[in-house]
């Protein structure tokens, strides 16, 4: 259990094995992590670029947009505008981590600790990933998707497939289920429940309720609308799902393509909601593992300094007036909050005891962190654990920019007693998918008339959809629906209609 893992910068596959085993011991014994089995793959820079363009997945179907991303990344990499990531890790079982061949031995250690244990634990334990992704099946599914799409191209033509995929990609951000679906009804359970409810009603019977006047009876027209909407499952915010199930003129293979894109969007849905936590976890874990390895004398001081340098780069958070500033660095924010939790658990101040009575001073920071990693996403994580001490340390402030306000932008809260809660609430909102994605729903279909599909965007805080993009997306939507599509933007507060789009499909449906 001692002796240096390696010396200098060179490594071979035996070194990687040693590094992995050493990291595993620390991760499982000391940190109590629970990971998928690891698969470590060594790749070249070119292969890394390949992986970039297919959203990091080892296999993916063919589409021009991936070629575009590849060309773009390649050009900026060649010009030296962009460095490549040291690793890519895939939420699958076994958990695949790609390591770049030009990393030094120290970097490989860092990357293995970061990806193969940090991310890996998070993928396996976080509730969002458990709920929405199937780590065992994803690679098989992608393989199926690739084969299926290639087959479709052979049978129905490359262009037809490309059009469908273009349209599906445009709607991808609105092709996810945000809430776990209804469980299948278990009739026996249902009967039992109905019986209980009847019993309860009998016990609570009061004839007086019968005399309470109800509202005016619903007209048959209203009832018809309600019935139709219930049959179509409206309102529906998963546009791809709605099209797949209800678009009148799609061919079966097109529905399958929509389904594939929808499944992939769903697979990535948790990653978008847990950027801060995911990177924070991995950074925290690699920091703990590397420090332990150094303490045990398995890394030389020189190697440890090399690690510290790249670690510092990773968790660097420029301030808002720094030219390098481009929003919060998820590594920095996540790592800072998790270190802060460790401090609160181990060495709380009076303020911490008041703000975090549940965890302050309990002493076992790993138990608290494991619980946090399992049960939170970015939004809830920040709104729970961003402490006043950290707000002061980062000197956070909140700006409120109302375009109607001529005077300028209001500084609404700063790092003081009055501002802590407001800053925390606002920052957590920045990570809330409910606020990030526009809220767009299918509200109705004019079944009796021209089969127009009606969408509604609920406008929050006056932020309307960008016009050119929206027209293009709706055009794709209309092509899939093959009848007219309308979208109204309605202000959430006043219910006022702000704007209306109507698009016709480019190919008129032939007379049925």
């Amino acid at each position, binding site marked *: 259990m001692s002796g240096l893992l390696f010396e200098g910068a060179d490594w071979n596959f035996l070194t990687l094995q040693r590094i992995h085993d050493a990291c595993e011991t620390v991760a499982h014994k000391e940190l109590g992590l629970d990971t998928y089995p690891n698969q470590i793959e060594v790749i070249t820079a070119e*292969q890394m670029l390949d992986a970039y363009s297919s959203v990091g997945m080892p296999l993916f179907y063919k589409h021009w947009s991936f070629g575009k991303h590849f060309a773009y990344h*390649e050009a900026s990499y060649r010009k030296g505008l962009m460095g490549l990531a040291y690793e890519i890790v895939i939420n699958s079982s076994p958990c695949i981590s790609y390591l770049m061949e030009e990393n030094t031995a120290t970097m490989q250690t860092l990357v293995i600790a970061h990806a193969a244990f940090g991310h890996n634990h998070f993928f396996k334990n976080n509730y969002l990933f458990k709920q929405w992704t199937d780590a065992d099946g994803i690679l098989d599914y992608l393989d199926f998707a690739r084969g299926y799409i290639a087959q479709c191209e052979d049978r129905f033509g490359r262009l037809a497939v490309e059009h469908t995929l273009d349209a599906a990609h445009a709607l991808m951000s609105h092709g996810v289920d945000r809430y776990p679906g209804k469980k299948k009804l278990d009739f026996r359970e249902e009967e039992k429940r109905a019986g209980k409810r009847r019993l309860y009603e009998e016990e609570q019977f009061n004839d007086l309720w019968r005399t309470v006047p109800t509202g005016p009876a619903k007209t048959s027209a209203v009832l018809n609308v309600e019935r139709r909407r219930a049959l179509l499952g409206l309102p529906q915010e998963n546009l791809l799902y709605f099209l797949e199930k209800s678009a009148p003129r799609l061919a079966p293979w097109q529905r399958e393509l929509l389904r594939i894109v929808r499944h992939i969007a769903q697979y990535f849905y948790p990653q978008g909601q847990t950027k801060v936590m995911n990177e924070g976890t991995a950074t925290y874990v690699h920091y703990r593992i590397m420090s332990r390895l150094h303490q045990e004398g398995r890394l030389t001081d020189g190697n440890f300094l090399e690690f510290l340098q790249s670690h510092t780069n990773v968790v660097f958070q420029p301030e808002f007036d720094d030219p390098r500033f481009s929003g919060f660095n998820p590594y920095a924010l996540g790592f800072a909050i998790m270190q802060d939790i460790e401090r609160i658990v181990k060495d709380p101040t009076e303020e911490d005891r008041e703000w975090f009575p549940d965890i302050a001073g309990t002493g076992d920071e790993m138990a608290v962190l494991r619980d946090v990693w399992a049960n939170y996403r970015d939004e809830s994580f920040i709104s729970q654990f961003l402490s006043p001490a950290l707000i002061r340390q980062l000197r956070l*402030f909140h700006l409120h920019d109302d375009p109607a306000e001529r005077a300028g932008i209001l500084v609404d809260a700063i790092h003081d007693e009055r501002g802590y809660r407001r800053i925390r609430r606002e920052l957590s909102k920045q990570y809330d998918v409910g606020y990030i994605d526009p809220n767009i729903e299918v509200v109705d279909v004019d079944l009796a008339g021209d089969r127009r599909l009606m969408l509604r965007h609920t406008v929050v805080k006056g932020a309307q959809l960008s016009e050119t993009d929206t027209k293009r997306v709706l055009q*794709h939507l209309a092509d899939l629906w093959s009848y007219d599509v309308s979208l109204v933007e309605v202000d959430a507060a006043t219910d006022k209609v702000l704007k209306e789009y109507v698009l016709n499909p480019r190919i008129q449906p032939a007379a049925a």
Partner: protein
Amino acid sequence: MHIIDRRLNPGGKSLENRQRFLRRAKALVQGAVKKTSQDRDIKDVLEGGEVSIPLDGMDEPRLRREGGTRDMVLPGNKKFVEGDILPRSGDGSGRKSGPGQGDSEDAFRFVLSKEEFVNLFLDDLELPDLAKRKFAEAESEGLVRAGYSTSGSPANISVSRTVTRALARRVALRRPRPEAIAELEAQMEQETDEEKKAALAAELEALKAKAKRIPFIDPIDIRYRRFEAVPKPIAQAVMFCLMDVSGSMSEHMKDLAKRFYMLLYVFLTRRYRHVEIVFIRHTDRAEEVDEQTFFYGPASGGTLVSSALQCMHDIVRSRFRPSDWNIYAAQASDGDNATSDSENVARLLTDNILPVSQFFAYLEVGESGTYSFEMPDSALWSLYERLRANGEPLSMRKVRDRSEIFPVFHDLFQRRGTTQERAAS
């Protein structure tokens, strides 16, 4: 834990996606390629390289919001207190764009390979009159069956040839046939006379021994199929660049000419494996020069076009036999010529140059700012016009501005229709 070395896996996984992208963005990329090629040297244009196309041509639309009231939390407060109003127009610490609103690139840049570049550059152009293809320098090699050899790899054994040779050898050496032996054996069975039987047995023994000495297939019978590398016929071309460099030719005009030559060169190299360029510049006398001198070397004097044509004719005669070479010529001039020279020019062209050339283009260059159709016909232009009217295969164009070069070139080499008919503008 598994460690897998993927470095040796075939790369280029994105190649197909890239091709799909190029196919889709073809029009945009083509425009970009033409634009990029304007700033290059003749030979560099073949090198591929970076192009940029407008982003919005290839966008992937998404439903996204803009505007409205924005709230943001930022790190690094230094002096603000609650309730401060920050002026909107001020920069520096006053106003800061929200996260994710960094500088967006207005164009999409990426690198094209040489092949991709040239293909896009010269898509749907065709060389006129490719009839004269000549066997020339052996540049490419192909494998061709070339009889049989006594050595080679076992995979190339020619069974039929080997068996035939073995048969011939067996016949020539009188190897006893199995039937003969069998017959002798039967005869011996039937023979009752002991003495005769012994003689037959001896004969049989001798036959068997002989059959053993002469093998059914001997190593010397074995023949292998032989393959030979042969040079494939390659068409070769020479391109003559003729230019007037007298004082009346401005830098701008030379630049126009250069661009035209560049296009022609690229085009020829795509059609012919071997292309030579001859640069001939002339004032009142002509000389063959290198590219650098041709475009940038100072020269002065009068103008005698016939001198250049004579020079070209001499070079063709001495170095490029018309039966071996495809000859292309492009002449650039501002149209000035000594009036007394016309007869010479006409004679040289009709008698010596045009009969041996595949293609002769005349490019009349002028100052920018005026329009082509405003150019009065120059002395040379009228002369060539007259020759053309007599049925000589001349292509001629007027060019004023850089942007006209490609359309003119495109026009000359368009795939359908004979160039000569569409020549005059």
